[in-house]
């Protein structure tokens, strides 16, 4: 097990030569978000000028008054400038010049609030940066959803122009599906996985921080689409409409490609960390279920996201370099894009679902005071879902006119994927059997997860049936299905995780009463919003339309009002979160939930290097109810007794 290997050039904490005194760090004089913004602006201007220089002579650019080359190059140089300004390349350059680089455990610069606006190597800082970032992206997407539901209040009176409506629909979808891919792996995976496995670090701290810092860039590039006229394709970006679209489409393609790179890096880092940085005694059979979920999600990210980046690259070249990958009149194929996109797109939704499974499997034992029922079944379920997710993507294309003889096969594989998904339900129901439920806010969210995912999953089985899919494909039935699984599943688990782990990561508790109000209003409003959409879809309303049959107006109005209430419940959460972290700041004890996990054995918030010494793990984290169970780990193993501890925990001999 590689735990403490250091490259030879690593220096002692404090930087500089051994024995040097630590430097005082003035935030404004060192690379941070302010220099990144300056770098980004310079980069954009440079790239845009270069694009105009290259493209201005092209007839296509002259007649359309639309220089996609300038915009794309502007964005690419913007990203490079942003990263240079952040100081991402500083260590690379130092190493090339043969000078000493920053060590991963040099946290002398990480003081005060400034550390959250910097490119840091501390995985806990990166985790909190991700948390705030993901909350911002989520609420921006939520506001866009409110705009959509406002337009859908009337089937004929239009609040916004058709371009604006499609812009808003596309931005909402892309914001949620693109930016939120790392909604759990980013904040919770990066923060907690090293602590849960008994490590002081992640495998690649610079890659992890880079994966975060690409996200604000992608967010701003995506939002810039509004200034460029928006994109009319929705989050799926189907060609040839995406090739035909105006300048805003470039924002989509570049932002999605950028996020694709970010999630590949994040997944890669987490997989290596889990495999290589486990503490002694942390056998695979003692690994917390959340870590299993992060491992499988990481594999999916690394294997599926490159296809997306390739697809987005092809859209960009089709729009700028006049290639014809997706234009059938010139020998390309619109099916090519659909296949590339959904080959990524299907694992993507499991990338969103698996972390939710991980969180609820983590919450249930703590609040039922029982071991996780069927640990191996749960892990097998996660692997089964991950592997099968690569074999089902054609179910998005049942009506597209692609070769029909593969349809029964994909119907079968899609139906089969519900079996490992069912394992998670088996594990949960078994854990609930004759338990002692403590109805805290995290448990309420975990139970709501199962309620919602039940409807999401069952509707998925309906959609996997090809004849039923003929009516349901592309309608609001599909919308209700994926909102139930992703919002009802993942987002509920996300909030459950926030209420559960915030005392640990920030050292403050969220108000329990406000949490319960948030839960109940969110749960009721969510179901009131999305349950009628199953009916709306089966009654013939397609997705992404702004005019619908007049007899569906009552249902749509009910849904819109409920959506406004759902937005209101989010405001309760924001109020609770902001007031608790900024104003009330009630200190959290080390282990407020009396949980066995390794992360609860360190102080709240954890010290800067997680553990004073690498612990030795003695037992699994779910051994509730067993008076003979060992404590989960020995945090101060005596020096030289590691071999003895290994024998005692049964690892050898």
């Amino acid at each position: 097990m590689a735990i403490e290997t250091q490259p030879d050039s690593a220096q002692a904490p404090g930087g500089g030569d051994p024995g040097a005194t630590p430097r005082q760090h003035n935030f404004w004089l060192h690379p941070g978000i302010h220099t990144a913004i300056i770098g980004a602006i310079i980069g954009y201007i440079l790239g845009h000028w270069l694009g105009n220089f290259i493209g201005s002579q092209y007839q296509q650019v002259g007649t359309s008054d639309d220089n996609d080359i300038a915009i794309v190059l502007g964005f690419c140089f913007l990203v490079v400038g942003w990263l240079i300004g952040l100081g991402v390349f500083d260590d690379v350059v130092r190493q090339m010049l043969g000078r000493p680089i920053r060590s991963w455990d040099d946290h002398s610069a990480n003081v005060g609030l400034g550390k959250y606006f910097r490119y840091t190597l501390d995985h806990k800082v990166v985790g909190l940066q991700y948390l705030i970032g993901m909350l911002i992206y989520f609420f921006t997407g939520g506001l866009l959803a409110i705009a959509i539901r406002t337009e859908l209040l009337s089937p004929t009176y239009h609040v916004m122009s058709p371009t604006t409506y499609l812009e808003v629909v596309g931005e909402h979808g892309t914001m949620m599906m693109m930016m939120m891919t790392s909604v759990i792996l980013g904040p919770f995976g990066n923060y907690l996985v090293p602590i849960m496995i008994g490590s002081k670090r992640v495998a690649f701290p610079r890659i992890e921080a880079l994966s975060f810092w690409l996200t604000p860039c992608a967010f701003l590039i995506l939002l810039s689409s509004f200034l460029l006229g928006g994109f009319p394709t929705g989050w799926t970006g189907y060609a040839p409409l995406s090739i035909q679209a105006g300048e805003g489409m470039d924002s989509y393609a570049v932002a999605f490609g950028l996020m694709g790179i970010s999630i590949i890096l994040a997944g890669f880092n987490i997989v290596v960390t889990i495999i290589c940085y486990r503490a002694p005694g942390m056998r695979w059979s003692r690994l917390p279920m959340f870590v299993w979920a992060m491992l499988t999600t990481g594999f999916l990210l690394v294997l599926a996201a490159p296809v997306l980046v390739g697809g987005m690259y092809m859209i960009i070249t089709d729009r700028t370099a006049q290639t014809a990958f997706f234009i059938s009149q010139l020998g390309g194929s619109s099916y090519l894009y659909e296949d590339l996109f959904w080959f990524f797109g299907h694992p993507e939704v499991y990338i969103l679902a698996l972390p939710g499974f991980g969180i609820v499997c983590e919450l249930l034992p703590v609040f039922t005071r029982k071991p996780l029922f069927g640990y191996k079944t749960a892990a097998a379920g996660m692997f089964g879902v991950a592997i099968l997710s690569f074999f089902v993507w054609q179910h998005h294309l049942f009506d597209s006119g692609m070769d029909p003889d593969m349809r029964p096969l994909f119907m079968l594989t899609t139906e089969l994927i519900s079996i490992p998904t069912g394992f998670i339900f088996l594990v949960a129901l078994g854990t609930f059997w004759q338990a002692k439920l403590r109805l805290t806010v995290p448990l309420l969210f975990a139970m709501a997860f199962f309620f919602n995912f039940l409807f999401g999953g069952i509707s998925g089985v309906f959609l996997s049936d090809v004849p039923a899919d003929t009516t349901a494909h592309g309608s609001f039935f599909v919308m209700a299905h994926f909102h139930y699984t992703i919002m009802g599943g993942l987002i509920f688990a996300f909030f459950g995780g926030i209420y559960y782990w915030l005392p640990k990561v920030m050292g403050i508790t969220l108000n329990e009463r406000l949490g319960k109000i948030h839960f109940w209003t969110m749960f009721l409003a969510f179901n009131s919003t999305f349950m009628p959409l199953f009916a709306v879809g089966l009654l013939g309303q397609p997705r992404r339309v702004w005019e619908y049959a007049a007899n569906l107006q009552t249902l749509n109005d009910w849904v819109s009002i409920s959506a406004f209430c759902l937005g209101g419940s989010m405001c309760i959460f924001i109020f609770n979160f902001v007031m608790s972290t900024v104003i009330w700041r009630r200190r959290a004890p080390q282990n407020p939930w009396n949980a066995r996990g390794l992360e609860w054995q360190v102080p709240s918030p954890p010290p800067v290097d997680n553990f004073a010494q690498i612990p030795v793990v003695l037992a699994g984290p779910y051994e509730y109810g067993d008076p003979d169970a060992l404590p989960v780990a020995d945090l101060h193993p005596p020096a030289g007794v590691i071999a003895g501890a290994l024998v005692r925990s049964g690892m050898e001999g």
Partner: protein
Amino acid sequence: MAAESPAAAGPQIGGRRDRFWLPVAWIVLSVIGSLLVLLVWGPHMPPGDQSTSAASQQFDFTILATIATPVVIGVLLYLGWALTFWRQKPGDETDAAPLHGNTKIQATWIVGTAVIVLFLAAFGTYELIVPAGAGAGQGPQPIWKPAGATTSSLTSWTPGTSNILQVQVIGQQWAFTYRYPQFGGFETTQLMLPVDEPVQFNVTSLDVIHSFWAYTLGVKADANPGLNNVAYTTAYHTGYFQVRCDELCGIWHGSMYDTGEVVSASAFMKWAQATRVQLADVTKLLPPYADTYDPTNLSNLGAVNVKLGLVGAGGGYYNPADPEQP
């Protein structure tokens, strides 16, 4: 189902209540629920039964919902039971019984879910093949065709023969048009179909991807540029049906809909012959009927440009013979 070690962490709870009444409640509620779904909801299940494909989809939805009902009731009942009976009593700080798993329960669950899922896959396959593809677009080489119907003539059609009626659906930004090759290839914006006759839809697009969705007919086929997508149905009842575009195709996607009508075979023949005459002058101008159209590559299109001495493609779309050069 015994706990794997004696309850060192609190007294045994539940017993008969959980092991007997919970399954009984589940079975009773499931039977009632499934019967309600099958018998009361089934006949009103969307998308209705105006055509063969719609009726088979309605049956599919009914069976799926009937099978889903015990699952939904089971999980919801269980969760409610847990919230009611398995709560921690106030002041009790002990843990519950350390139950790690139960091989019999797990095996039963896995086998049970596998059986249900495999049945649904087989059932779905049967329901896909038998009703001629269940109204879904099958691409240019369809493999599931209506029994007894053939494409014996593309130039004429009479009701009551085995020759299948051909209707071409052309999606363009932003309207559907319909062409009837067996009536001289006229093109209209109005879709009329005869009742009780098998119909073959040939769906294609002139520009981007659209999707032809005739809701109460249970037909959905994507319209792809340069490709032909075939779907079949036979209408059972006369009446109107909504046609909507189901694939985001640009600004007016949400406004791209019209209403089609199923009429008696004789009314359909009268309409088709009258429309053929009325539109004769514009039918002469249309390209010859084909499965797909590439508007950038037709010989008579070039005549305009040659006559005028204009270079490059009119309309600004890529001309395959003359790509835009910098």
